[in-house]
């Protein structure tokens, strides 16, 4: 249930419209392609998840296969991707409920993150019990929507066509790939699952098959009722179509389904990111504080909170397309590394106990790598730039661990001193009128001066403390 609950997510409710604009009715083909590409990598997850039952999922797999920077890079991108995914789901949730009540999208998304951070601090078992009921309800509503669309007499047959030709289909595939994400979260929480060697492969494939059937059928049914042009501008194409075909009852039902899907995904991805952060901290890449386990709930509560803060900042943007592409990017890199890890382990540890083995090896992981990386070419250029920045940050973070904590601490001490001097100078210039703030009220100017002054004092003290850290040359 964790797999299905994490995988049927807000993306299918709020992203199909834009994707329909790219691929037209051939979006059905794009969704099938996504399912096939996803299947290749899920085979690798199933084999590695059953063979290496440790918390951390992809990071643990890459560590067993490669170690060093490659494993850190895998964990880094999985951590970041899960936060993007949580942000996407929370923003999607806000757009979904705006169909019933007007809400401030970024604020609603942030509040959602906060609530689920608290829920995750309480632990997976608590979530699992409620998730079974929620996911069951979600599936029933979606199946009702699909069946209604298949039998409705007014609906017509569809002809598969793409306004952008084959390129439009591939672009839509790259964009909508995110709707299949979430199933791999099962492999991240494996340490908390009973009998993981059997449960994980079964859960992964069951979830993948459910999605492979539900998603293309959903798109097919949608286009039987309305043409792609009609839904491309809707914030939630699925709810829009449900209202047209099933009236207000359909709208409410799909809002409920979308809410369940979005919130399940938020929950799953917050859990997943905290477990990856925990694993990275366990190996010394992240601060030891993330290793702390709650004394009552036995969950890595600090890791949950830290990840939730970053996720909330991402969710505050309120931009679905950007967060969707960013999620795609991170997971595609992670998927490629997982497939590579499988192949490395097959070669170097052939006697490793593997309760489940990937079928048609080595074709399956090679196809997973090739098709995933191919999609990267069609991701939004702005997100690709962000991806490069994230790679640079990953190198820096790894370098800190390798080179030495103290050197970076002294360097940041110097940066703080510089920032302190800068803000102090700024405060002086504004207070004395050398740098007039035209159009700003005197009260605001006074507040700005005092804030800058306070910030500069803190920065200077912090800088001195860091520069004179124990062991430094000062």
């Amino acid at each position, binding site marked *: 249930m964790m797999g299905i609950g994490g995988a049927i997510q807000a993306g299918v409710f709020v992203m199909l419209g834009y994707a329909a604009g790219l691929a037209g009715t051939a979006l059905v083909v794009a969704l099938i392609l996504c399912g096939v590409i996803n299947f290749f990598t899920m085979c690798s997850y199933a084999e590695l998840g059953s063979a290496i039952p440790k918390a951390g999922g992809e990071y643990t797999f890459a560590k067993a296969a490669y170690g060093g920077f490659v494993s850190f890079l895998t964990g880094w991108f999985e951590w970041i991707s899960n936060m993007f995914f949580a942000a996407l789901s929370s923003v999607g949730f806000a757009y979904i409920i705006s169909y019933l009540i007007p809400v401030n999208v970024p604020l609603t998304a942030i509040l959602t993150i906060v609530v689920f951070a608290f829920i995750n601090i309480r632990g997976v078992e608590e979530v699992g019990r409620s998730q079974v009921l929620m996911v069951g309800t979600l599936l029933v509503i979606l199946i009702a929507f699909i069946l209604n669309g298949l039998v409705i007499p007014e609906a017509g047959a569809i002809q598969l066509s793409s306004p952008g030709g084959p390129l439009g289909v591939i672009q839509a595939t790259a964009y909508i790939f995110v709707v299949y994400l979430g199933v791999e979260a099962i492999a991240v929480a494996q340490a908390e699952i009973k009998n993981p060697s059997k449960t994980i492969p079964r859960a992964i494939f069951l979830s993948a098959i459910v999605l492979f059937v539900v998603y293309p059928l959903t798109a097919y049914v949608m286009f039987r009722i309305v043409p792609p042009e009609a839904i491309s501008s809707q914030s939630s194409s699925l709810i829009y179509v449900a209202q047209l075909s099933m009236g207000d009852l359909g709208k409410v039902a799909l809002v409920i389904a979308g809410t369940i899907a979005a919130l399940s995904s938020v929950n799953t991805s917050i859990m997943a990111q905290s477990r990856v952060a925990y694993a990275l901290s366990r190996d010394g890449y992240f601060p030891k504080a993330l290793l702390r386990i709650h004394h009552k709930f036995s969950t890595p509560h600090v890791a949950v909170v830290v990840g939730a803060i970053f996720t909330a*900042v991402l969710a*505050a943007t309120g931009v679905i397309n950007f967060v969707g592409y960013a999620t795609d990017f991170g997971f595609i890199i992670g998927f490629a590394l997982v497939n590579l890890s499988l192949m490395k382990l097959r070669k170097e540890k052939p006697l490793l106990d593997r309760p489940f083995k990937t079928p048609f090896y080595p074709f399956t992981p090679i196809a997973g790598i090739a098709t995933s990386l191919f999609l990267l070419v069609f991701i939004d250029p702005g997100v690709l730039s962000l991806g490069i920045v994230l790679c640079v940050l990953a190198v820096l973070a790894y370098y800190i661990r390798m080179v030495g904590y103290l050197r970076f601490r002294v360097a940041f001490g110097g940066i*703080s001193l510089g920032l302190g001097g800068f803000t102090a100078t700024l405060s002086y210039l504004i207070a004395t009128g050398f740098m007039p*703030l035209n159009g700003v009220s005197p009260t605001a100017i006074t507040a700005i001066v005092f804030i800058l002054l306070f910030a500069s004092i803190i920065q200077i003290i912090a800088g001195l*403390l860091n520069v004179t850290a124990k062991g430094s040359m000062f």
Partner: protein
Amino acid sequence: MSIRRKVSIVVGLAQSLIGAFATAFAFILYHNFLGTQAMLNVTAKDVVFYMLILIVFGLLSIISGLFLVNEQ
């Protein structure tokens, strides 16, 4: 716990909070919550520039503050 350690924690937390506030304020300014752009007489053209400065300042402050809080 030594006095230096206590001071480090307090100053580190304060610095991290200042950094977090600066980063949050960048988004508040961008989305123009509570009419901040008009209040500070910031034109739409200059918003991105101020956002960049605030985010860089914020992130550097947060990282530096974390070094102090996690002093080894």
